[in-house]
């Protein structure tokens, strides 16, 4: 009897206790990334950057607390979709952010934006389909469309003495976009092209032998994370380093450099964000990140930080009231926040219109491998698919 009474009292107390708390229930943000397997280092870098954003915001958006629920996609589209479903249906999050991989994002998109009517902010993946015909009012990007970064690289190579290129990428949504991108701006000869099994193939011996025989002026690759480390190692082991120069997108970054070390030295790449961009918010982000973790943040992290700051900007503008999705979308679309890459505007398909820079892998004064901006490749670039997007 006493037990029952106690139970009833607890329920009542909980019910009353929860009443005021409900009014300021925390804003919930789901964050999908890869936290296990060989690509887990990328997920960890994103998590650290999101936590830093939370710290810089003092744990609050417009006075409301917010919580981040991290979910592991295990680098698999089906798992990513299922985790997205869990975030939307079970956790009832206000936003879903993250997504490293284009194939994971494509598998999860409808679950979040259509079935769940939840706003998705991609912190990395930018498949061409979502920039074009599949564009969605609930989808925003704080990264880029896949074609854009290789387009910047292609434009840079076009101005150099590179007459012929050999292209290599993983055989999945992003890999195809990347090769399509470089071909849009590089008008020299494409001497050969390989799409390798993704993500299983880490042995590039057959392809490297083909490159040796084809004798191109340069090799262009797209191998993110662990694959980039393997490619550089095998490229050097095959004796091609110093003979055929390498040009890359997303294959040399702050996460892979500690393993690639001198092998990466002098290699050129393109990116919309570099750790040495001179704006105040970026200086603070990079300095605080290094102080905390002892390593440089990567572009994955910078874009994830931006995703949280974009959400915060909308929450601030609406004074913490996220009940109207139309208003939230309208505020997000203004991109009214201090992005680490500098200010940008949203295009009609809700991808950023932004600059891209050429960066070189160098050793800094302390002997640490890092990336340095050497040129601005393109300014205020729009992706090549936005006209196919029905949203105006």
């Amino acid at each position, binding site marked *: 009897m006493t037990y029952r009474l106690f139970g009833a009292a607890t329920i009542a107390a909980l019910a009353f206790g929860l009443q005021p708390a409900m009014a300021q229930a925390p804003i919930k943000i789901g964050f999908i990334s890869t936290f*296990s397997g*060989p690509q887990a280092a990328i997920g960890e870098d994103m998590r650290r950057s999101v936590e830093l954003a939370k710290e810089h915001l003092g744990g609050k958006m417009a006075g409301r607390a917010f919580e981040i629920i991290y979910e592991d996609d295990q680098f698999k589209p089906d798992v990513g979709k299922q985790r997205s479903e869990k975030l939307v249906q079970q956790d009832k999050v206000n936003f879903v952010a993250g997504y490293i991989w284009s194939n994971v994002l494509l598998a999860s998109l409808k679950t979040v934006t259509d079935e769940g009517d939840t706003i998705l902010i991609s912190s990395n993946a930018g498949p061409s389909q979502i920039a074009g015909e599949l564009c969605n009012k609930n989808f925003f990007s704080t990264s880029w469309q896949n074609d854009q970064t290789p387009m910047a690289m292609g434009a840079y190579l076009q101005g150099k003495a590179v007459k012929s290129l050999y292209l290599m990428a993983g055989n999945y949504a992003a890999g195809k976009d990347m090769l399509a991108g470089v071909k849009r701006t590089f008008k020299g000869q494409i001497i050969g092209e390989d799409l390798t099994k993704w993500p*299983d193939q880490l042995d590039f011996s057959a*392809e490297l032998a083909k490159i*040796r025989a084809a004798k191109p002026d340069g090799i262009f690759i797209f191998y993110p994370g*662990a694959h980039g480390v*393997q490619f550089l190692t095998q490229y050097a082991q*095959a004796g091609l380093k110093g003979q055929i120069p390498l040009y890359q997108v997303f294959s040399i970054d702050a996460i892979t450099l500690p393993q690639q070390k001198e092998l990466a030295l002098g290699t050129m790449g393109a990116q919309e964000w570099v750790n040495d961009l001179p704006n105040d918010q970026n200086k603070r982000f990079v300095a605080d990140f290094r102080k905390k973790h002892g390593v440089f943040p990567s572009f994955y992290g910078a874009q994830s930080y931006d995703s949280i700051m974009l959400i915060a900007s909308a929450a601030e503008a609406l004074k913490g009231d996220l009940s109207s999705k139309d208003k939230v979308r309208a505020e997000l679309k203004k991109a009214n926040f201090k992005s680490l890459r500098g200010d940008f505007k949203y295009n009609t398909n809700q991808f950023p219109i932004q600059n891209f820079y050429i960066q070189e892998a160098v050793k800094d004064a302390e002997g640490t491998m890092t990336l340095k901006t050497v040129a601005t490749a393109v300014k205020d670039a729009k992706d090549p698919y936005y006209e196919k997007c029905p949203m105006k």
Partner: protein
Amino acid sequence: MDYLLLQVLNGVQLGLLMFLLAAGLTLTFGIMDLVNLAHGSLYMMGAYIAWTFVGWTDSFVLGALLALPATFLLGVVVEMVVARRLYARDHLDQVLATFGLILFFNELVRVIWGPAGKSLAVPAFLNRTVEILPGVPYPAYRFAIIVVGAVVAVLLAWLVARTRLGMLIRAGASNRRMIGALGVDIELLFTLVFGLGAVFAGLAGLMAAPITSVKIGMGDDILILAFVIIVIGGIGSIKGAFVAAMLVGQIDIVGRAFLPDFLKTFLSSAAASSAAPAISQVLVYVVMAGVLVWRPTGLFGQRA
């Protein structure tokens, strides 16, 4: 010509790695009649154990040499605790139990080594190229894999063809009830064979590690190829496993190196480069189906 030689060597290197994995599998299948899906887990454990020993000893060779007896012991323990209880059961029970072992080992690795995976560096003295012909460089580490793989293949051939243990293995593969009746300690033989298979799988895993990185589930994908190899070669036949592994190695390289150019002769460049990886992935299965139609017991299969 140089190009062709390089690609053939790449195929041989891949084939030898696959042979090491398939040898143990074909022995356990052929002699104990055990479908061991967990063979890929031994491959993974070999890589993780080697990673740990390399960290302790600061030497790749020393770490690898220590990892081999460790994987042998692991194989023996798995045989005595789990596999032994499965010989008399039917294949479905074996598949279920050894699939459970895969889950167990993947989780064990997650607990001990964490979810992130490890990278094992190529030893410094092999981190260069060797000239196999004047002006034709080849990565020294891959060349070392070929040498080690070939030596092990020769040793294994000698073991099976010339020693008493090999005689018992061959006898077990053709009629295991009979050698039991002849008074051979069949339990001990089975334990030894299982341990031997584990060593070969572990060796394959640790040699592949610097090329493909050490990760959870690394043996699961390659295990399917190993099964294809023992089916093509004939279950229980070491010679068959060797020939089939060489064949599969070359098919994989042909699919990657020559198929795209071949497809480009009648397809558009874009279509060819995205179709080639897909076709090369199914090529080995097509060959397997062809072999099974022509020879239902595999190239060197004994049993009807």
